[in-house]
């Protein structure tokens, strides 16, 4: 019998179904399947706007995912477009989003960290909002100080608010009374003295702060602002270094750590550790965003109920840092699609179709988050969402008059400065660098990074 063994280039036309022929079919399919996405990936990733209306794509980090879905459903019920939601874990959100956008993925709307927002516009990943109807009204509705996070000095509107918060000192009222301290501190010196007194009375770690590398920059600004020190001028120059009071602030900071008034793990501990310490009575003071009061209270430790907020941060000026993250529109959305995306931005970062702050009310109910709009503090639904242990008029006053967003924080180079602050302040606290050296080095870092545009 003549058996022919076909080579790759000489397939017999009359071949019947055999193992080899089956494999050939599989081969053809196998070649096609991986080739399609690869060829697609090799295609032009440069910006081509998508004008087609339809389902919008939105990327968010995984905070309260069910609530996000409910909000998007509510948006659709009010006549908005359907939204395809993509959630990314909080840890690694920035790199994941950056990779997707750099790879050419079209995302209509996305959460972003405020410090990255300008960089994303400059990179052509996020669009400006100036030409959309109502953009100016949205900004006009905000506390004037808050608007600087969303409108750059050159006039470009780059984002809308996702949420806002202020840094406050939380303290245990009962601890203070029990240890003969009549009133909470009004200056840094008093914070130090009270902490020493509490420490000698047996409170293990009187002062808690989220002093990990990533968050030290927030604390730098909080402590500077509290003493009335301007961190950066209008052009982003680090004028804090020219103010002699900056060194006093840093000396105080170093003493708080080196004199054992904080927990030993304060340089690496997560907020959860500090919340537990407050709830258990191992700490008396806790400096972080205002919404952590709700977390301490709901932890239901033996001391949770005694913790309250000092609405004026200890310091000669008493000013604090206002933080907040943002939502941006993808640069690839055009035409009607961009209008639909803008509608979603307005719903999510301002008011719904009937003029209510429903998204912010929803976040307030879930996590005591705020928004940068004075109108929120007049909205009964919003106010009712906060537990009674928050003094809303005082919180409003902090937002309106005693907080600063530090506009330089959205400069394209600022994220790099944050890394430097983390390294240098931790080294200073550990005694590896002296105060003057640290202040000078930080100013040099800021100038160099700004000059390099990084």
């Amino acid at each position: 019998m003549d058996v022919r063994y076909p080579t790759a280039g000489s397939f017999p036309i009359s071949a019947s179904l055999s193992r080899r022929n089956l494999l050939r079919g599989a081969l053809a399919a196998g070649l096609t399947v991986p080739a399609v996405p690869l060829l697609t990936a090799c295609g032009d990733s440069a910006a081509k706007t998508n004008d087609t209306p339809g389902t919008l794509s939105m990327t968010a980090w995984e905070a309260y995912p069910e609530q996000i879905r409910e909000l998007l459903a509510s948006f659709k019920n009010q006549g908005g477009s359907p939204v395809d939601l993509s959630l990314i874990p909080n840890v690694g959100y920035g790199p994941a989003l950056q990779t997707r956008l750099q790879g050419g993925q079209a995302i209509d709307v996305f959460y972003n960290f405020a410090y990255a927002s300008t960089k994303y516009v400059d990179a052509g990943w996020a669009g400006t909002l100036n030409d959309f109807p109502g953009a100016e009204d949205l900004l006009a509705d905000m506390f004037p100080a808050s608007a600087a996070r969303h409108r750059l000095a050159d006039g470009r509107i780059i984002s809308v608010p996702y949420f806002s918060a202020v840094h406050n000192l939380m303290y245990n009222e009962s601890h203070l009374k029990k240890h003969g301290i009549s009133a909470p501190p009004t200056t840094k010196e008093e914070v130090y003295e009270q902490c020493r007194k509490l420490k000698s009375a047996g409170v293990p770690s009187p002062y808690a702060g989220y002093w990990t590398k990533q968050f030290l920059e927030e604390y730098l600004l909080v402590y500077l602002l509290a003493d009335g020190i301007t961190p950066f001028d209008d052009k982003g120059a680090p004028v804090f270094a020219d103010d002699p009071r900056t060194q006093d602030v840093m000396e105080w900071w170093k003493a708080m750590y080196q004199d054992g008034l904080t927990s030993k793990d304060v340089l690496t501990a997560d907020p959860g550790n500090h919340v537990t310490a407050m709830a258990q009575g191992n700490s008396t003071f806790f400096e972080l965003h205002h919404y952590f009061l709700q977390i301490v209270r709901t932890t239901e430790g033996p001391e949770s109920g005694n913790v309250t907020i000092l609405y004026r941060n200890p310091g000669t000026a008493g000013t604090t840092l206002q933080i907040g993250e943002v939502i941006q529109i993808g640069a690839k959305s055009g035409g009607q699609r961009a209008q639909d995306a803008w509608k979603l931005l307005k719903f999510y970062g301002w008011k719904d179709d009937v003029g209510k702050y429903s998204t912010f009310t929803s976040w307030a109910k879930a996590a005591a988050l705020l928004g940068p709009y004075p109108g929120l503090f007049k909205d009964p639904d919003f106010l009712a969402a906060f537990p009674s242990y928050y003094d809303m008029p005082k919180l409003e006053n902090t937002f309106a008059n005693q907080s600063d967003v530090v506009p330089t924080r959205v400069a394209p180079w600022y994220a790099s400065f944050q890394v430097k602050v983390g390294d240098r302040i931790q080294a200073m606290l550990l005694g590896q660098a002296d105060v003057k050296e640290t202040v000078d080095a930080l100013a040099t870092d800021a100038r160099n990074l700004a000059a390099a545009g990084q």
Partner: protein
Amino acid sequence: MTSTAETTSRPATRRRTSVRAQADARFGLLLATPALILVLGLVAWPGLRTAVYSLQRVSLAGEESWTGLNNFRTLFTDERFIHSLTTTVLYAVGFLLVSTLLGLGFALLLNEKFHGQWLARSLLIVPWACPWVMVGMIWKWFVDGEVGALNAALYQFGLIDSYAAPLSDSTGALVVAVLAGAWRQASFTGLLILAGLQTIPKELPQAAMVDGANVWQRFRHLTLPWLRPVIVVVVIINTIFGFMQFDTIWALTQGGPGDATSVLSIYLYEQLFVYTNIGLGSATAVVLGGIALVLGFVFVKLLYRSNAITEGVE
């Protein structure tokens, strides 16, 4: 005696077999092509792009311009990079030693017969089942200076007077980072070595015992040479993991305190995703990949030499 027909038919058969083998080889190559395309697309292409980026200045908007070796010059004159490189070497050496020795210890222990051996063997896989980032979080709590179980245990046994916070100390943080990573890797190492130990014929240790060899001599002259190929593989894997470690350290310290645990992969992360300096980040990746490649090559050479020795003995 062989007939003429038979002698002439043999080369023909060999030729036909050869043609068939070649056809099979070609056909096999064709079948492997989809997988090859995937591998090239997902590994080689990004690798090549990274190498190209390392020689360029790349803006986020996608503009690229050639800069030659500038990125590498910048790297090797950057104190932070040199510090990260040194920290990476220290970390990798510690990781390699602890994970390999601990894994070897686990394997030798679990190769012995005792009650509950099956349970102990099952437990060995638990650390390996934890993602790296989870390992970092577990260890962060374990060594916590306020409520950590390690502190509690040491305090209860009277070994310390007060709780310590190793993560707030530069040396302590690096040691904890090494131990955390090595704890997970020791589990995998133990499994590999245990598999190697199972292949030792029972007669060999028995014969050695008859010859009067003690435990150490049996381990030194029988077990260890037998395990050498496995150990070389383990060393290759552990070295590469040691150099590439990111998640555990990030979860533990974010590279701190200060820059005490800032290894190259953290430096790379910062360059790519914070400074968004794609050229410099890619150059760092090339250096890191180069180190892994060279070490891998050296260890593979060692592996083949050890195989040759084993084969020679046999």
